[in-house]
């Protein structure tokens, strides 16, 4: 919210330097995001700032209030005029093309001179003709324009950095003192304040001024609402019918007659502009000004139009009815849009139909216009939820809707109307009718909350006495009543009843047994009741006391039971292990599309899968939650292979699996890996290393699972359709399948923008895996008996899996076979077609004694015998 300091200063004295004020406001919750200097010098130097600093300074010696006494034609140019201007020191001839001076051309000496912003020779102003994005400046120099000397100028708003307006020059109010430096006359500083939803009550000058008063210890002044009511009583001229007080707790009308539509004073228009609101005419400006000042949005109706509509409907006077819109109803709003209305939209209507979207925007048919003379001014309170829904549904954000959709206290309605009428009368003349028509069927309950200094201690960790607490709350307009309480067996109870009033609490000394009964002021809707209200008051106390004054303490409270997080511990261990194995961790977008993920199956073979789709995706590529982590890592490889041919990655994260009958999808943690490219990084010493394949990935899998000490891992030929059917394994722990891996199916690879190099990938179900990880494992003693080492090669049919041979050897070797390692696989002439040779090194060792050659030979013989008999192999000599 853009807030001119000059306006705030009408209601609170400000003694702090500007930036210090901004800092204090920011700490108290009114974050000042930008400080804009309008005319005043910007702070100099390179030191740190409380907010973004912007603005343009007007040199007090060179930019002053000037008075134009006569506007004369230019001898050589129709589009230019010459002004006889006095600047408090001497008279000048000033040349300008400002269209708003043309009406005065050739009229001779003006009855009352036009006051303007005059820039003397040598003054620096903003270059209004620059096309640069950045603001550029220009210094006014003497030159001849169409044969006439020009050395100074009357400025537009753009030239002074006030607004973008450059259609004409600024014409100031008549009372501007000629020769006064312009900055002294109308310089300002504008704070742009970020208003959080709970500070909606402060989205106005009085609200901000009240906060400043509280945090700086000043008194708040209140706007003048006293209006001379010289007209007839308003009663009988309009009726109000509220059909649902929940939607419309209060509705008030005031009437002003015989106004004259004209511009409001320049200073008013300037203030509105600096506040970010367009100046229109005195009537509209008055409603906006009163709203910005008090926070009560107003709406002005042309009374004669309403009267005419009433008579057409056969009534003597208009009856204004507020109600929810009906199905199919429409309204043309004052932006000339025809709007289809929702049943939650609240309407202001009369006997003939809708007039306005309550609290959001007026209708075109009944708004004030250039010929309006009689104005009915509405101040009301509207249900914030309905207002909010209407704003969203109609996409109609407005200053009024902003406030009503965050809650405006109904007490403000008549205040706003009186303030609006007073300003209209000041700026547009007319006669204000006596009284208001005011329907107020649903006054809000202004909560009363009981707090004690002990509560302050318990919530905030600070010791404040009753006087300090009361003083803080009263500075924000809360009403406090203090009563004495006694503690009986630790329970507090009220025995003496009310002891002292707001002004009489100085006699109390037993602070911790004093009860403060706090009543919410009639402009706030954000304070709750009971314990919620207590929390709300704690925030107010802490803010005004100063968050920075609250000490830092370390928690003295009991520690909670130790629960640990086993799943995360195992995940982190896996991450470390995979990183140690040379894999890069990636984290992908979890929003994807079913089409993208279907690519992980051979074309035409994707099974039907149920996704959790988004109602409001931001793009078709991110339209659903992922079901496959394999798809995620394949996307990453695809995105990287053009940059580097070696990619080795893993990702840990959930996939989202909707289940019939379950409210929310199952979030199942997965681990996926993908490797492709050369085994080592390209460098000058290791040219031509081989590509990574199934066995590289299997090595990673074995090592990672080995690090978790999983018992009984088995690899079986797998059937994962993403992988090459001949190069795919399922991983089991006991009977439980925990994952699968393999080389990518060639038809799947074709679905991706990938080169024809081998890509091996894996997916694991982490919840299955985690459940199987043992907490503890046994460590074998280091044997002190010498081992017997020997090698053994067997020739066997190609289709006998190696694991089967190894299992047989292990089983036959029994306890004394302590290690078995495959060190060579050979196929070729020496073993014959359809055969392979598997060469193992074996370690025999007995824990307690030295093995004899005889014992070892016996075991070896059994192994060979079983290989021959059970697997049809034979010893390779």
């Amino acid at each position, binding site marked *: 919210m853009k807030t001119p300091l000059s306006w705030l200063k009408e209601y609170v004295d400000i003694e702090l330097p500007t930036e210090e004020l901004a800092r204090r406001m*920011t*700490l108290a*919750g009114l974050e000042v995001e930008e400080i804009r200097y309008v005319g005043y010098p910007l702070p100099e130097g390179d*030191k*740190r700032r409380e907010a973004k600093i912007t603005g343009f300074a007007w040199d007090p010696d060179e930019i002053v209030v000037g008075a134009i006494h006569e506007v004369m034609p230019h001898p050589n140019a129709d589009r230019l005029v010459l002004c006889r201007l006095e600047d408090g020191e001497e008279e000048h001839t000033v040349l300008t093309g400002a269209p708003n001076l043309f009406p005065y051309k050739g009229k001779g000496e003006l009855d009352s001179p036009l006051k303007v912003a005059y820039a003397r020779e040598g003054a620096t102003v903003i270059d209004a003709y620059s096309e640069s994005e950045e603001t550029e400046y220009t210094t006014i120099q003497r030159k001849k324009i169409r044969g006439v000397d020009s050395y100074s100028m009357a400025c537009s708003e753009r030239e002074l950095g006030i607004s973008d307006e450059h259609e004409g020059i600024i014409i100031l109010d008549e009372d501007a003192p000629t020769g006064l430096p312009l900055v002294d006359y109308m310089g300002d500083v504008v704070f742009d304040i970020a208003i*959080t*939803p709970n500070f909606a009550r402060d989205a106005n000058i009085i609200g901000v001024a009240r906060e400043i008063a509280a945090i700086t210890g000043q008194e708040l002044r209140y706007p003048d609402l006293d209006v001379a009511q010289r007209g007839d009583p308003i009663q009988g001229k309009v009726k109000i019918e509220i059909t649902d007080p929940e939607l419309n707790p209060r509705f008030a009308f005031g009437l002003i007659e015989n106004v004259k539509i004209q511009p409001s004073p320049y200073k008013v228009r300037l203030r509105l502009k600096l506040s970010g609101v367009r100046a229109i005419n005195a009537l509209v400006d008055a409603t906006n000004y009163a709203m910005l000042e008090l926070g009560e949005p107003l709406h002005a109706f042309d009374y004669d139009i309403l009267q005419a509509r009433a008579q057409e409907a056969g009534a003597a006077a208009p009856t204004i009815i507020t109600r929810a819109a009906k199905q199919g109803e429409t309204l043309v709003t004052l932006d000339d849009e025809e709007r289809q209305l929702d049943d939650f939209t609240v309407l202001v209507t009369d006997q003939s139909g809708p007039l306005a979207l309550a609290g959001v925007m007026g209708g075109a048919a009944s708004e004030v216009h250039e010929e309006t003379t009689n104005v009915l001014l509405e101040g009301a309170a509207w249900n*914030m939820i309905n207002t909010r829904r209407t704003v969203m549904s109609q996409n109609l954000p407005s200053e009024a809707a902003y406030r009503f*959709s965050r809650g405006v206290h109904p007490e403000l309605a008549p205040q706003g109307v009186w303030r609006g009428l007073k300003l209209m009368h000041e700026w547009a003349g007319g006669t204000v009718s006596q009284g208001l028509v005011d329907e107020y069927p649903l006054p809000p309950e202004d909560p009363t909350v009981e707090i004690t200094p002990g509560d302050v201690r*318990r*919530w*905030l*960790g600070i010791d404040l006495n009753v006087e300090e607490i009361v003083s803080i709350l009263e500075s924000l307009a809360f009403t406090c009543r203090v009563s004495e309480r006694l503690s009986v067996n630790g329970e507090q109870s009220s025995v003496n009843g009310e002891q002292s009033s707001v002004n009489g609490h100085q006699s109390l000394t037993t602070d911790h047994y004093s009860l403060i009964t706090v009543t919410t002021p009639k402009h706030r809707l954000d304070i709750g009741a009971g*314990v*919620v209200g207590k*929390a709300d008051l704690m925030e107010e106390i*802490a*803010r005004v006391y100063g*968050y*920075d004054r*609250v000490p*830092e*303490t*370390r*928690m*003295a*409270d*009991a520690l*909670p*039971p130790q*629960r640990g*997080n086993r799943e995360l511990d195992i995940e982190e261990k896996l*991450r470390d292990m995979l*990183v*140690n194995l*040379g894999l*890069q*961790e*990636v984290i*992908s977008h*979890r929003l994807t599309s079913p089409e993208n993920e279907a690519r992980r199956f051979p074309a035409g073979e994707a099974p039907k899968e149920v996704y959790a*789709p*988004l*109602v409001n995706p*931001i793009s078709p590529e991110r339209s659903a*939650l992922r079901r496959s982590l394999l798809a995620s890592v394949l996307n*990453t490889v695809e*995105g*990287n292979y053009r*940059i580097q041919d*070696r990619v080795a*990655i893993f990702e840990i994260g959930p996939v*989202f699996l909707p289940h019939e009958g379950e*409210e*929310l999808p199952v*979030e199942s943690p997965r681990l996926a890996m993908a490797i492709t490219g050369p085994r*080592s*990084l390209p*460098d000058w010493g*290791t040219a031509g290393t081989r590509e990574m394949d199934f066995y590289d990935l299997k090595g990673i899998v074995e090592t990672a699972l080995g690090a978790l000490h999983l018992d009984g891992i088995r690899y079986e030929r797998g059937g994962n359709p993403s992988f090459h059917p001949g190069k795919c394994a399922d991983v089991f722990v006991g009977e439980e399948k925990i994952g699968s891996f393999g080389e990518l199916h060639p038809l799947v690879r074709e679905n991706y923008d990938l080169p024809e190099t081998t890509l091996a990938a894996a997916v694991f179900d982490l919840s299955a895996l985690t459940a199987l990880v043992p907490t503890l494992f046994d460590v074998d003693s280091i044997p002190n008996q010498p081992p017997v080492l020997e090698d053994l090669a067997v020739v066997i049919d190609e289709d006998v899996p190696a694991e089967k041979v190894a299992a047989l050897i292990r089983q036959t070797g029994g306890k004394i076979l302590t290690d078995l390692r495959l060190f060579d696989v050979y196929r070729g002439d020496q073993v014959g077609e359809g055969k392979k040779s598997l060469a193992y090194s074996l370690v025999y060792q007995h824990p307690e004694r030295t093995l004899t050659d005889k014992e070892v030979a016996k075991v070896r013989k059994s192994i060979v015998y079983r290989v021959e008999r059970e697997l049809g192999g034979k010893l390779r000599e």
Partner: protein
Amino acid sequence: MLEKIGEIKKTALDALAKIEGEEGLDQWKVTHLGRSSAIMDVFKNMGSVPKEERGNVGRTANQVKQALQAALDEKKEALHQAEIQRALQEEKIDITLPGYAIPRGRLHPTTQTLREIYRVFADMGFQIYRSREVETDEFNFQLLNFPPHHPAREMQDSFYVDSGEERGENPILLRTHTSPGQIRAMREFTAENPDNPPPVRIILPGMCYRYEQVSARSETQFTQVEGLAVGHDVTFSDLKGTLSDFARRMFGKNVDSRFRASHFPFTEPSAEMDIECFLCGGAGCSVCKHTGWLEILGCGMVHPNVLSNGGYDPERYSGFAFGMGPERITMLRYHIEDIRYFWANDMRFLEQF
């Protein structure tokens, strides 16, 4: 005979002196000390030496043999030393050539930052609690004191999940913050002992989602770490102490922090914590927008409604909560300009960590 032995010795030593490389020594040993060498012949032919001379000849021959062996050892050692000296002189590599590349894995930068956060809070007794990413409106908003149509919801535009059924004001959505985990954790703990639930000290990390246009400054998904401490005597000053301690551990032991009043529906009082800009030391720079402060986290005392919804009686328990964005912290620390880098998984980004 003795003369002949002298000759043998001289011949052998002369030959030895001429040898220039270690490879010649073996041949010399065969020739001059081997089985059929001249000196060995002396021993073999001892029978032909007159009896009275045998003692003298044998002694002398033995001395010569030993002398030759010693000369050989000495020569061997000298040549070995000479060889090492030569190698040290001559063998020189270009030490400026790059080392052989070794593939290395790394943790994602977000994981790295998360782990630092975990560690600091673990030291202060906070345990890690993880919770689901797809939530109901009830858990993501309503139980956290955001009633339907609450204005604060505007700051957290949600992705909604199509559940195929009309759910009214309790649609399914992707959590916009990790805070629904507060409710799930508190309910889990209060179920254990509803009348006297245990204190809570947890952090809740995880992925969150917001409906936002993707740009260098905002992404549709981001991680968050939430913290929650609940007990009989947890105060706003404890909140300040805990988070200031965190800032000093995370950003430097002299880093100053400040707390500004702010608003979150699920905390009251609420605050934003700024830390002194660690890039300029608080002097003002472009990163801190010349304010000297960096906004790091939002925090506050847990709202009574939230405590109640978790099963904790707000008249007996109080607590504080906070939330921060690991990506933002990572970006500030490493001068990362574009948040989109985090999930784009470009190796040229990830391999810099």
